[in-house]
């Protein structure tokens, strides 16, 4: 079935940047209440770039217990967020969310979401969308707790 792309299975078996690391500015713990899946996620902002419009995500580390979709999503998130400007990360989040909630209408733009396009098939299964969004909701929550402005909304990403 098209849901389980090789890329997703690779990410879920060998999650990138996994594990909880120091230093971090904020940590969140999000749970999928229907299945008990959990993600603990830490975020570190580059102290030299501040928390304003020029903020940069220096590190994302996580411990994800869950299905292949949620673990792969956490792995892809870390890959797409670490070392990127906050504005780009929020742009990726916005594009992922649009793709995942499109019921299969939006195939996703690899330029924006990177390996996240492999999760496009999830959009056809409404019950699994929560699995894919779980680490992203943990990230935006952590960014807000770290003092970053996540309400400004995603900005267009420059390729």
């Amino acid at each position, binding site marked *: *079935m098209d849901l*389980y792309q090789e890329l997703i299975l690779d990410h879920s078996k060998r999650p990138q940047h996994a594990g909880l690391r120091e230093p971090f500015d904020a940590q969140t713990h999000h749970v999928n209440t*229907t*299945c008990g*899946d959990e993600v603990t996620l830490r975020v570190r902002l580059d102290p030299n770039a501040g928390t304003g419009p020029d903020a940069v995500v220096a590190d994302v580390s996580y411990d994800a217990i869950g*299905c*292949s979709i949620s673990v792969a999503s956490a792995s892809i998130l870390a890959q797409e967020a670490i070392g990127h400007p906050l504005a780009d990360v929020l742009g990726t989040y916005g594009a992922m969310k649009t793709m995942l909630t499109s019921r299969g209408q939006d195939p996703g733009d690899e330029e924006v979401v990177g390996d996240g396009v492999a999760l496009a098939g999830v959009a056809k*299964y409404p019950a699994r969308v929560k699995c894919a969004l779980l680490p992203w909701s943990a990230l935006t929550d952590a960014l807000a707790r770290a003092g970053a402005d996540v309400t400004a909304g995603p900005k267009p990403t420059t390729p």
Partner: protein
Amino acid sequence: MSATFTDAELARLRADFPILSRRVRHDAPLVYLDSGATSQKPRVVLDAERDFYEQHNAAVHRGAHLLAEEATDAYEGARETVARFIGAPAREVVFTRNGTDALNLVAYALSNASAPGALDGVDPELAARLTIGPGDEIVVTQMEHHANLVPWQELCRRTGATLRWVDVTDDGELDLAGLDAVLGEATKVLAFTHVSNVLGTLNDVPTIVAKARAVGALTVLDACQSVPHLPVDVTQLGVDLLAFTGHKLLGPSGVGVLWGRYELLEALPPYVTGGSMIELVRIESSTYAAPPQRFEAGVPMTAQAVGLAAACDYLSAIGMERVAAHDHDLVAHTLAELAKRPWVTVVGPTDPDRRVGAVSFTVDGVHPHDVGQILDDSGVAVRTGHHCAWPLHRFLRVVATTRVSFSVYTTIGEIDAFLAALDRVPAVFGLEAASA
């Protein structure tokens, strides 16, 4: 053990359930193995609801017209049918929204009973049993559905009582020695399930009730997973109160049942108050109607109760002994087949005689959500997750399980279709090929 169905009988029975002829993903025939979450409904149940609305609809217990009389007769007739189904007098049967509502009713009635003056006029010995406060203990078990756990946590929070619990053995049985250690003079309530919705374990109710009786504790039984599969007679179980839901019993959603010994219902104050449940209302205070009306505030779920009665009649016509024998065949076949797959771990008793209704399991190296997704791709509907029994899953040291659960219309062929789909799982996730 009664004879189970012939293939022809089962095919005729399945034709009563319109949804079972649906085709789902990739035009595969629906294999519905999620009846523990909610059962499908036979046409007679749907017809009963429709007939009520088309011919008799009115608000019950009020109105001076013919339809109001007919609606009241239909509702009270439904109560009599449901009561007969569980061996109880009609006045001991309270209609609720669902099983959760029935259990909350008991927990809230008990804390309302603990308010000063709430039990004035009640026999002092009974009043003492129904009054809960600091120093008292409420006992539950590790295998409870959240619906028979959270209301008791909340009762403890409101009254200052202490929550205690009984563990589960490695075989998925209640630890009866542990129960002896937990029960004591301070125990006011023992709330436990008849059949675990995850493990399928059939608890030994009379033995457990005898232990609770010995310390004077009230017994509250969650029968949501037993009433659909077994002959249940409240007079034989010995419990004080029992809850079940209609939608798992081939009935509509939106109706459940609380059964209670009349002397208890008569002593307990109401949970929800308002219209229909009063005796006399003055502007400053009111008195309550006798049970069961005392616990049925507002216009009740009449059509749903009528539909539930039709479901009980449908099952009675088949015979609950045969329903139970059929369930036993399904459970035994599932356990035997899963045991041939070393990459599958079943939770709960290995002996089919100790089980009812459901089999939950894990697949080595694959999350249950992913297992469920592969099964769904073949048209097999199962439940994955913690099944509203999160503490039990923690106790079993698993995040989640995959559950197949049965009903009267489930076939051995459907279980074989499930097994064939399950055998795809290791390959999809690139695990060591499973030679079944």
